[in-house]
C-alpha cells in the first residue's frame, strides 16, 4: 500500500520539540558585531543632514554608516510592467519616504551599545507633504518621486470597455477596501554575514536562499562562487521574507567592508514597519445580470498601494486580475488596475498575494447581487458556477483553469454545514429580535498556485549503505517539506523514510533552487523529488536486470524488505545497498539530478462557510463556525494539508475581523506593536470543520496542486460575507474589513438612518 495520502507525523517535529529550533540569531558567530538601524521618524521629508559623529564616538561603536558610505546600488523591482525608476536606496539618500525607512546603520560590539548609539544619530528633516490615501496619490498632486511626474508605478494594459453592462437588468456597485495587513512571522527578519577568504557567507531568514544569494551577488558585485546563503530554521515568512531587504544588503556589505562577522535581528516593532505589508487595495466593483440570478458582467477596478517604493506589492493586481472571474461562468469580466506609491511601508507578497483580494471582490460582489435580486446567495452561486464538465476552462480574462468541480465543492459544503438548518436558526433569531444575530457567509473560490514560471531542482542519491539523500531547491520554513519529500521518495523506492536524509536551505549544498512561495513547493519541488526518484529507480532496475539477466520491466520494488527483485521471484533480487555498491564500482553512482519544469499553474478551489454571531448593540463579532471544503488535487499527507488549511483560515479570518495596519494623518504607524496590531489568537477562533475533497490536476503525474494559501483565500470572504449577512435584515449592505466593533456599529447606525 502506498504511503501517499496517509497521515505521517512530521519528521521535523521531534527536533523542534526536544532541542528547539536554530534560527539566524542562534547561529554562533565568534566576534560578531551587531547592527542597529536608525530609522526615519518622519513619513516624507528631505534629509538636510544625518550627523553620525557623536554616535561614532560612543562606547562600543565600530562605525556608523549612511547612504554616503554604502556603495550598494538602489534596488528596483524586476517585475513585468512595474517601473524600475522608483528604485529604493538601501539607506535613505536625500529623501525619506516612510516612517521606518533606514537612514543609518550603527555597528557596535553589542546590541545594547548599538541601540544607545543609534539614539545619538541626529537626523535633520525638512518635512514634505505626506500622501497616504490611494485616490489622492493617484491624482499625482503630492509626488514621492517628483522627477517622474507621477505616483503610478504600474498600470495594467487592459482598458475598460464601455458596453460591458449593456443588456443587464440589474447592475450593482461596490467599493471595497482590502486593507493593509502585516505578515507578522513569529521570527522577525534576521541576517548574519561573514566575509572570509574572499567569500561571503550569509545566514538569512529567507524563503529562498538561492534568490537571496542572487540578490546579494548583484548588489555587492560578487560572483556566484563568492556567495553562500544558508537559511537555518525560518520562523515563518508568509511571502514577505525574500532575504533581499535593504537591511539584509547593508549587513552583508558591512561584513565585507569591515571583514568581521556582522549580525542583525530586528525587533517586533521594526518588523511591523520594516517588513513588507500585504494587501492594500481599494476596489471599485460592478456586477450586472438578470433577475433570474445569472451574472452577465463583472468589472473590478483596482487601486493598489505600493507603499513608498514599489516592490512585489505593486505587481499584485496582476494576480488579482488573473483570478477576476472567480469560479463563475460570467460571460464578460474585466479588471483594470493602477499601483500607486504612498508614504508608507512597501507592500509585498503575503499569504495569497493578489488572490485573496480577487476572491474578496468577486465574493462580495456576488453577495451584493444576490441581495439586490432577493435570491439566496447559495442559489446565485449554484446558477453561475463553472460546470464540472467545462475543464480545462478559459475565463474571459484568459486564465485557463486546469481542473475543478465547483458545484461539487459547494454542495458538500452546504451539506456539511447544514445550510438549511442554519438559515432556519437565523430566521428564528431574526424573529426573536434579540441583540445577537446570526450571519451565514459563503465563499466559493478558485486560486492560482505555482503562478510564477520557474522549475525546481531536486537531487537524489542512494548511498552504499542503502540510505538515500535528497537535495531540494525549495526552502521550507514550517510547511513540512522534509516529511512530504521523504514520503515521495520512499513511495517510489521502498527505502524507509527514516533512511532518507533531506538537504535544503544551503546554496553550497544544493546546487540550485527557486524557493517556497506561491503554494508551489509540492507541485514543483515535490515533483522534482518524485521524478529524481523515478530516474534512480529506473537505473536500479536496469542494473538489477543486467545482474540477473532479466528484463528491466519485470523488476519491482518490495517496500517491506527494501529490496528490488524480479516480479514473482522475490529471492532473485538485491538490496538497495548492494545495488548502490555495484553502481559505485562501475563509477556511476545511483544518483540523479532533476530540473523539473511544470506544465503550468494549477488552480485549487473550494467553498467555505462562516457562521458568525454579531452583537448589534456593541458591534462585536464572534466567529462560531468555519466549515471549509478545500480541494488541492491529490493530497500527499492530510496532516500537513490540514495544518496549512488551519493556518490559512486563521489568517483569512484575521483579515476579515481583526488585523489592519494603520497610520495617523501624518503617516506615523499606529500599529507597530502587538498590543496595537490585532494579530488573531486561538481564543478568537472556533475549531475549524475541514471537509476533504480531491480532484487531481492533469498537469502533473502526482495530480497535486498547492494548498498553502487556500485557507486565507476562502475564509476571508466567507467571514466578511457572514458579518454583512447578519445585518442584512437591518439594511446593511457592506462592512469593510476588518469588521471591528466600531465599523459594525457605524454601519448599523448608518443603515438605520
Amino acid at each position, binding site marked *: 500500500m502506498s504511503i501517499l495520502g496517509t497521515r505521517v507525523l512530521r519528521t521535523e517535529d521531534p527536533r523542534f520539540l526536544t532541542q528547539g529550533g536554530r534560527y539566524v540569531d542562534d547561529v554562533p558567530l565568534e566576534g560578531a558585531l551587531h547592527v542597529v538601524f536608525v530609522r526615519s521618524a518622519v513619513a516624507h521629508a528631505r534629509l538636510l543632514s544625518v550627523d553620525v559623529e557623536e554616535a561614532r564616538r560612543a562606547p562600543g561603536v565600530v562605525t556608523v554608516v549612511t547612504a554616503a558610505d554604502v556603495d550598494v546600488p538602489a534596488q528596483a523591482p524586476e517585475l513585468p510592467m512595474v517601473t524600475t525608476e522608483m528604485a529604493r536606496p538601501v539607506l535613505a539618500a536625500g529623501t525619506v519616504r516612510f516612517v521606518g525607512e533606514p537612514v543609518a546603520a550603527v555597528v557596535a560590539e553589542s546590541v545594547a551599545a548599538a541601540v544607545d548609539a543609534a*539614539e545619538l544619530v541626529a537626523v535633520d528633516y525638512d518635512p514634505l507633504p505626506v500622501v497616504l490615501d490611494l485616490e489622492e496619490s493617484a491624482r499625482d498632486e503630492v509626488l514621492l518621486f517628483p522627477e517622474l511626474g507621477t505616483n503610478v508605478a504600474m498600470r495594467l494594459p487592459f482598458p475598460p470597455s464601455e458596453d460591458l453592462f449593456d443588456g443587464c437588468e440589474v447592475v450593482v456597485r461596490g467599493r471595497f477596501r482590502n486593507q493593509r495587513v502585516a505578515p507578522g512571522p513569529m521570527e522577525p527578519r534576521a541576517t548574519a554575514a561573514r566575509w572570509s577568504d574572499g567569500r561571503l557567507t550569509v545566514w538569512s531568514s529567507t524563503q529562498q536562499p538561492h534568490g537571496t544569494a542572487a540578490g546579494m551577488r548583484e548588489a555587492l558585485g560578487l560572483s556566484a562562487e563568492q556567495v553562500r546563503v544558508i537559511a537555518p530554521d525560518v520562523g515563518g515568512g508568509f511571502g514577505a521574507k525574500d532575504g533581499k531587504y535593504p537591511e539584509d544588503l547593508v549587513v552583508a556589505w558591512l561584513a565585507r567592508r569591515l571583514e568581521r562577522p556582522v549580525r542583525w535581528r530586528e525587533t517586533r*516593532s521594526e518588523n511591523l514597519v520594516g517588513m513588507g505589508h500585504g494587501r492594500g487595495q481599494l476596489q471599485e466593483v460592478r456586477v450586472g445580470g438578470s433577475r433570474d440570478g445569472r451574472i452577465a458582467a463583472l468589472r473590478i477596478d483596482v487601486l493598489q498601494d505600493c507603499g513608498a517604493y514599489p516592490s512585489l506589492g505593486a505587481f499584485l493586481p496582476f494576480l488579482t486580475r488573473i483570478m477576476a472571474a472567480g469560479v463563475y461562468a460570467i460571460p464578460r469580466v474585466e479588471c483594470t488596475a493602477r499601483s500607486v506609491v504612498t508614504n508608507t511601508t512597501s507592500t509585498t507578497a503575503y499569504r495569497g498575494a493578489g488572490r485573496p483580494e480577487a476572491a474578496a471582490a468577486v465574493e462580495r460582489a456576488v453577495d451584493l447581487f444576490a441581495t439586490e435580486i432577493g435570491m439566496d446567495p447559495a442559489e446565485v452561486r449554484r446558477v453561475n458556477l463553472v460546470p464540472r464538465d467545462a475543464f480545462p476552462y478559459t475565463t474571459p480574462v484568459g486564465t485557463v483553469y486546469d481542473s475543478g468541480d465547483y458545484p461539487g465543492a459547494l454542495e458538500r459544503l452546504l451539506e456539511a454545514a447544514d445550510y438549511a438548518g442554519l438559515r432556519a436558526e437565523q430566521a428564528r433569531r431574526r424573529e426573536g429580535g434579540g441583540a445577537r444575530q446570526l450571519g451565514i457567509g459563503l465563499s466559493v473560490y478558485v486560486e492560482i498556485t505555482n503562478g510564477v514560471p520557474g522549475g525546481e531542482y531536486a537531487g537524489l542519491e542512494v548511498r552504499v549503505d542503502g540510505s538515500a539523500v535528497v537535495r531540494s531547491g525549495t526552502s521550507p520554513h514550517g510547511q513540512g517539506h522534509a516529511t512530504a519529500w521523504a514520503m515521495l521518495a520512499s513511495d517510489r523506492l521502498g527505502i524507509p523514510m527514516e533512511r532518507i536524509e533531506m538537504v535544503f536551505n544551503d546554496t553550497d549544498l544544493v546546487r540550485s533552487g527557486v524557493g517556497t512561495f506561491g503554494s508551489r513547493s509540492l507541485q514543483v519541488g515535490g515533483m522534482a523529488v518524485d521524478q529524481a526518484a523515478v530516474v534512480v529507480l529506473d537505473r536500479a532496475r536496469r542494473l538489477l536486470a543486467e545482474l540477473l539477466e532479466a528484463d528491466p520491466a519485470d523488476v519491482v520494488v518490495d517496500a517491506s524488505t527494501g529490496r528490488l527483485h524480479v516480479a514473482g521471484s522475490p529471492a532473485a533480487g538485491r538490496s538497495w545497498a548492494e545495488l548502490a555498491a555495484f553502481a559505485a564500482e562501475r563509477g556511476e553512482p545511483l544518483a540523479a539530478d532533476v530540473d523539473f519544469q511544470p506544465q503550468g499553474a494549477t488552480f485549487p478551489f473550494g467553498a467555505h462557510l462562516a457562521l458568525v454571531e454579531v452583537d448589534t*448593540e*456593541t458591534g462585536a463579532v464572534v466567529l462560531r463556525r468555519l466549515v471549509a471544503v478545500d480541494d488541492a488535487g491529490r493530497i500527499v499527507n492530510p496532516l500537513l494539508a490540514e495544518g496549512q488549511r488551519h493556518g490559512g483560515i486563521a489568517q483569512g479570518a484575521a483579515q476579515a475581523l*481583526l488585523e489592519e495596519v494603520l497610520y495617523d494623518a501624518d503617516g506615523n504607524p499606529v500599529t507597530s*506593536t502587538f498590543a496595537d496590531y490585532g494579530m488573531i489568537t486561538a481564543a478568537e477562533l472556533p475549531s475549524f470543520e475541514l471537509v476533504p475533497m480531491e480532484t487531481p490536476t492533469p498537469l502533473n503525474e502526482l495530480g497535486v496542486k498547492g494548498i498553502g494559501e487556500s485557507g486565507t483565500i476562502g475564509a476571508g470572504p466567507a467571514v466578511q460575507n457572514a458579518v454583512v449577512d447578519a445585518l442584512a435584515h437591518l439594511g446593511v449592505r457592506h462592512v469593510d474589513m476588518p469588521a471591528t466593533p466600531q465599523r459594525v456599529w*457605524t454601519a448599523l447606525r448608518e443603515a438605520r438612518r
Partner: protein
Amino acid sequence: MIPAAFEYRRAASVDEAVALLAEGGEDAKLLAGGHSLLPLMKLRLARPSLLVDIDRAAGMRHIDERDGTLAIGALARHQDLATSDLLRARCPLLAHAASLVGDPQVRHRGTAGGSVAHADPASDLCAVLRCLDARMVVQGPAGRRTVAAADFFVGFLESALGADEVLVEILVPVPAAGHGWSYQKFTRRAIDWAIVGVAAVVEPSPEGIARAAVGLVNMGPTPLRAAAVEAALRGAPRTAVAAAAASAPEGTEPAADIHADAEFRAQLATVLTRRALEEALSRC
C-alpha cells in the same frame, strides 16, 4: 527593545524601598511585576535612573480579611486575586476581574499594587476598586497614610502617590451580604485591554434596588464612577435599569483611538452598564 542604562537595587522591605526611593530622587522608580514599566522602558518611553525592585519585599503579598475589610498586599499577583478563596467568597467581582487581566503570563507577574500605582484608566482593577470604594495604604518618609480610591486616581497614568511613596496595601470593604455583581469587559481579543469595561455592584431591597455602584473602565483619563446611573437607581425598582444605564456616559470624557471613537465608547458604556446591572441583579 533594550532599555536605557539604569541602576538596580533590590529592597527587602517597604522601609528599605522608601529609603532607596528617597536616595534615588526624582528619577527613581519602583519595580513590581514589571509588566507595565518594563515595556515602557524597552520602548525607551520611560528612562528611570534607578529601579528599586520591591518584588521580593516581605509582607506585601497577603490577601486577608480584617473586621469587614479585605486587605490585599500590593504585591499580590492578579493570579493570586483570581484564585483566592477568600475573594471568591467575599468579593467575587474582584477575583473575576483579576482573572480577565491580560493573559496567564501577565496575571502571574503583574501585581495589584502595580496596576493601581500605574493608574491606567484602561486597567481592570482600578475601575473595579473604584467601584468597590477601596482605600489605598501608602507609606512614605513621613509614615503611612490612607487615600480613598476616589482621590487616588488623579489623571491619566497619574495617582496621588508621591515619587517617594510606596503603595503597601489595598483595603476593600466587604460588599453587603446578598449583593449582586458583574464585570463586563469589552475587548477586541481575549488577551487585550478593555476598550470599555463596566463593573457593577448592586445591593437589592425588597422593592428592587437599594444601592448600585458602577465603575467605568477607559471612559476618561481616570477610572470613573457612573454617578448619574447610581443616583437614578438609589431605591429604584429593577425595571429602572435600562433607563438609568442610558446616563452611563454622563460626565465621562472618553478618548478616541484606533479601536473606538468617543461616541462609540459612550454607546458601549450604556450597553455594558445595562448588561452589568442586569447580570448583577440576576445574582442577587
